[in-house]
Each structure stands twice: as structure tokens, then as C-alpha cells.
């Protein structure tokens, strides 16, 4: 073997080793959650990389001890409505910001991005006043509404960038065909923005699904809670016992849909849909 070849082999080996380390580092916490959720009682406190007697007790307990099914539905409703709201608002905003020339466009974009720089806690009390003023306290709509604060800046920003890239002549062809701006956005641009919509929609979904602070503050009763709050408030039989098994089981239950979503949409997150629109 030539020295060059050896060097290349070593380089390869180091690369895969690095991959392995990073992979372990990212996957291990989730793996540990899965394993812990399958253990019951005192087995939880023994270090065991594969449970000797996997048990589903924890999963059953999660649903028995609180309205967890209801919590999941709440989360789903909030996340889906947040995604729908922010995508439709962002799409309309992106058309204006990306395709219409007007004074102060750049400033407006900067302000929208600037909004996302406030920490959630800074807007919490103001938001609370607003929510109670609207009579939405302990209502899921309060969450869908308040989550727009952090989903809109990036959806607007990403969709604007994407929409700006679409060929001008495509829009003009539609105008000549008699399309209104609404038709252009919904029937010409939206189908072409699939990848961007899927990506931003997914990010908004995850953000809404995992949000904790607003969800904790704006809901009161356990049947209005979303999943993260419900998990945080899982309590044991006594004040001194933290039911790790249940918490882990609940975490696994709510993570699986996210992973499934990403896997399903992974194939849609491809660009190149505009190929064939112009010359080539």
C-alpha cells in the first residue's frame, strides 16, 4: 500500500469515528428515554442498557392518571392551527413583501425579524393582558394566537425569500391570463413553493408542539393543557416521588409523531420543482 492510500484510509476511519460519536451523542438521550420508559419500579435506578423485562406499565399509567389523550389532542389542535394560520398569513405577507414594490419594504422585513429577537418572557405579561382582554384565558385559541409571535417571523422571512426567487414572467403570464393576486398566490405560486411550505410548516409545528411557557401561563385546567405542560406537571403518589417512568413514557409518546412527520415529509423537502418553468 502506498503511503497516500494509508493516509486516505486513516482519514476515512477518523471521519466515520466522528460520525459515530456525533450520532451517539444526539441519539443517546432519546434512546435512554425509550429504555427508561420500559422499566418499572426500582429497575429504573439500575444502569441497564437494555431492560431485562420490558413492561408497558408506564404507558398505561400515563393515560390512566391524567387526561393525556385529551392533552395530545389539544397539542395537535394548537400545532395544526398555528401552522395553518402562520402559513396562510405568511404566504400573503410574502407576496406583498417579495413581489410588490413599496416604500419601507426593507424596514418592514427587518422589523418582522426583529420581533423574533424578544425573549418569550419579555412579552409574557403583556400577552397575558391581551389574552384575558380577549376573553381567551384557559382557551386553546389563546395558544394558537400567541404562538404566531414566534412562528410568523421565520415563516414570513423564508417564504418571502423563496417567493422573490420565482420568475417574474411566471407572475406576468398569470396576470395576462386574468389571474388576481389571490389566484396567483394560491394557484401558481403555492404549488411551486411546496418545499418551502413543508419546511417552514414543519418547523412551526415543532415549535408549537414543544412550547411550554405560554401554554403553562394561559391554561388553567388539566383538560386544556398541552403535552409539554401535562408532562411537566405529572406528579407521583407523594410529594417526594418523581414518577420518572411515566414522564419518560409520555415523552416518548409525544416525540414519535414528530419523528414520523419529519420522515414522511422528508421526501417533499426537495427543491427543483421550478425546473422547466423557464427555458432550459
Amino acid at each position, binding site marked *: 500500500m502506498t503511503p497516500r492510500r494509508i493516509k486516505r484510509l486513516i482519514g476515512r476511519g477518523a471521519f466515520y469515528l466522528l460520525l459515530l460519536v456525533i450520532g451517539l451523542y444526539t441519539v443517546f438521550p432519546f434512546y435512554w428515554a425509550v429504555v427508561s420508559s420500559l422499566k418499572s419500579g426500582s429497575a429504573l435506578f439500575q444502569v441497564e442498557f437494555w431492560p431485562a423485562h420490558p413492561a408497558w406499565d408506564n404507558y398505561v399509567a400515563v393515560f390512566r392518571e391524567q387526561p393525556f389523550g385529551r392533552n395530545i389532542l389539544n397539542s395537535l389542535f394548537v400545532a395544526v392551527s398555528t401552522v395553518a394560520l402562520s402559513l396562510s398569513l405568511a404566504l400573503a405577507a410574502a407576496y406583498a413583501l417579495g413581489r410588490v414594490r413599496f416604500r419601507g419594504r426593507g424596514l418592514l422585513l427587518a422589523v418582522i425579524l426583529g420581533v423574533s429577537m424578544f425573549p418569550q418572557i419579555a412579552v409574557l405579561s403583556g400577552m397575558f393582558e391581551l389574552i384575558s382582554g380577549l376573553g381567551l384565558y384557559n382557551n386553546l385559541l389563546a395558544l394558537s394566537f400567541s404562538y404566531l409571535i414566534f412562528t410568523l417571523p421565520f415563516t414570513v422571512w423564508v417564504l418571502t425569500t423563496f417567493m422573490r426567487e420565482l420568475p417574474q414572467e411566471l407572475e*406576468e403570464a398569470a396576470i*395576462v391570463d386574468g389571474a388576481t393576486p389571490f389566484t396567483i398566490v394560491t394557484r401558481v405560486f403555492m404549488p411551486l413553493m411546496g418545499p418551502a411550505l413543508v419546511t417552514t410548516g414543519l418547523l412551526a409545528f415543532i415549535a408549537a408542539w414543544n412550547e411550554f411557557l405560554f401554554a403553562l401561563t394561559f391554561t388553567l385546567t388539566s383538560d386544556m393543557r398541552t403535552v409539554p405542560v401535562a408532562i411537566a406537571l405529572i406528579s407521583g403518589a407523594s410529594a417526594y416521588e418523581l414518577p420518572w417512568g411515566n414522564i419518560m413514557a409520555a415523552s416518548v409518546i409525544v416525540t414519535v409523531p414528530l419523528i414520523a412527520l419529519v420522515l414522511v415529509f422528508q421526501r417533499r423537502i426537495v427543491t427543483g420543482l421550478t425546473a422547466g*418553468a423557464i427555458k*432550459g
Partner: protein
Amino acid sequence: MAAISMHAVGKTFGKTAAVSNVALDIHDGEFAVFVGPSGCGKSTLLRLIAGLEDVSSGSIAFDGQDVTEQAPSERGVAMVFQSYALYPHMNVYDNMAFGLKLAQSNNTNKTDRQGMDQRVRETARILQIEHLLARKPRELSGGQRQRVAIGRAIVRQPRVFLFDEPLSNLDAALRVQMRIELKRLHRELGTTMIYVTHDQVEAMTLADRIVVLNEGRVEQIGAPLELYHHPRNLFVAGFIGSPKMNFMSAIVTACDAQQVTLDLGIGRPIIAAVADTADLKTGAKVTLGLRPEHLTDTSGEGQLEGEVIALEHLGSETYAYLACGNGEPLVIKSAADTAIKVGQRVSVAVPPQKCYLFDETGMALARRDFGEWNVIEVG
């Protein structure tokens, strides 16, 4: 079908004037071609007619009805873009039907679906793209995409067709084919068409009338041969014709009733025919224009002489570049099997009736009409 008239139309982008003070009448059913160098405002003028841009000043009327404030769909225009601009996510059928569907949904008395379907299929048949109806644009070749783009325009039966350099993305052979097809379409449909190109061959072959634009202004409007034989000024003379007309500065040394004698500072005096010499005086500075195809090498004593510095063999003919004086080389046309060699000295005869003369301001002096062409009034 519509006659279009533009009155004092201007368009400025910020400080730059893309189109200024254009007055233009396009007849009903005419094939008009806008031609000019890059950036002269051809596309802008077309987009003003389409309604994609708002005029900064002036007005536009279709059939005498003011459309200046109307949207493109209200004007009833259809446009074919340089990049085709087909909807990438729709198949060919839907691309063509999109405008019809929109028109239908706006219309309260719903036109029957069958009528629409029939129109799309009929158009596809005319353009020979029936077998492509189910395909997406990305599955088509450039020429096929172009046909679909034209089909999308035809199917809506517009009053005016607008084309913005529709053939410039195609290869040479396809371009010629599509040119002939466009001409046939125009004959069959009889609709007013406005066509933008910077290719003067396309302009000459397609147009009923050519509008020559330069720096946002109209330089001349006329039938192709009218522009060729009677260019109004230096710009049009240089732009129409290929290869370009030769220009040489000269001084008038004698004026007769219908001809002048010119001194070029090189070679022998040249006699040029003009319609009348009223505007000319002995000693006036003029520019002489000579088309390469009117100049041939002569074995006899020509008025001009020069050394051949380059030869272009095109197969059917040969163009020779002569170093004549110290200006630009003089281009002359020669037979395909010419015996001329690079480095050889060649003598050129200048026929008086083939001369073009321009005064000091660049305006053409009227030429005598030798019955070599007839103005065909279209309308």
C-alpha cells in the same frame, strides 16, 4: 382583433426614460415588429401595450377605446414570453386552459366545459402538440415549450398577440421553422400581432411593418423594404441589412439636378444619385452609405480600392473586408467561388443609384426610386 394607437407614450423608471414620446398606430390585423439594439425599450413598449406596466405619460387606445387604465385581461391581450413562463406544476392541457378557466369562473353564465375542452384540443391540433397534452413543461423540449406558450396565447382568442423575443432561446434551425409557422398562424388567425426582436432578419422576414426603436424613441416605421431602401437616418440604415452598411464621410464637390459628386479623400470621385439636390451645396459635409451587397470587385477601374484583410466564406457568397483609407474596413460581397485572396488589392465599382447619402445631422437625403420595390400598404 384590434387596431392599436399610442399617443405621446412615455415611461420612466426612476430617472431613466425607457420610452419617450412614442406615437404609433398599428393597424388591425397587422404583423408589427419592434426592433432595435439591446436596452432600447422594446420590451418596455410591449409591456406598456400589454398593461403590465403603467404609462408615465400619454395614452393607449385599442380600436379607438382608451385602455390606458385597464388591466391586461381587460384589454384582451395575450403574451408569449422569452422564457415561455409556462406553469411548471400544470400539464400542457392545464397550462392552456388556465386562462379560460379563470375567465369562466368570473363569468356568471357558465360557458360549457365542453366548449373549453374543444378549444384547447383544437388549438393543440393547430400547433401539433396534441400528443403532449398530458406532459409537464419540464418534460418538453425548447421548441415544444414554445409551441405550448403560443398555444396558451391562441386559445384565449385575444384581440392582440404580443411576443417578446419568443424565439431567442431556440437553435437556428428551429428558429427558422417557428418563424414560418408564426407567419402561417398570423395568416390563419388574422389577429393583430406585435413582435419584439433584436434580430433584424426576423424583423425583415416576419413584419408587415417594422418599428425601429433607439434609446426609447421611434426612429422609423415602415414596411421592411421601405426601411431597406429608404432609411430615414444613419441609425436605421446601419441597423437594417446584414452585414451592416458601410459608412464613409465625404465632401460634395459638385451638384447636378439629380446627382452629386463626392470626394472621399481616398480613391476617385464618386457619383451618387439623389432625388433632388436642393438641400445640398458644394462643400457640404455628408456621409455616404454603401451596402456590401451592392459592391462587387471589378476587374476594371473602380472608384474605391483597398487591400483585402479578411474573407468570410458563407458558402453561398463571400464577404471581403478591405482596408480603405484609415476608417473602418469596407465590406463587399463577392461570389462564392471568388478568386480574391487575403493581401490582394481589389478595386470596387460604386453604382450611383445604390448610394445612400446622409447630411451632417445624420438624416437621409431622399433617394431616387428606381422601381425596385413597391410600398405595400397593409390595413
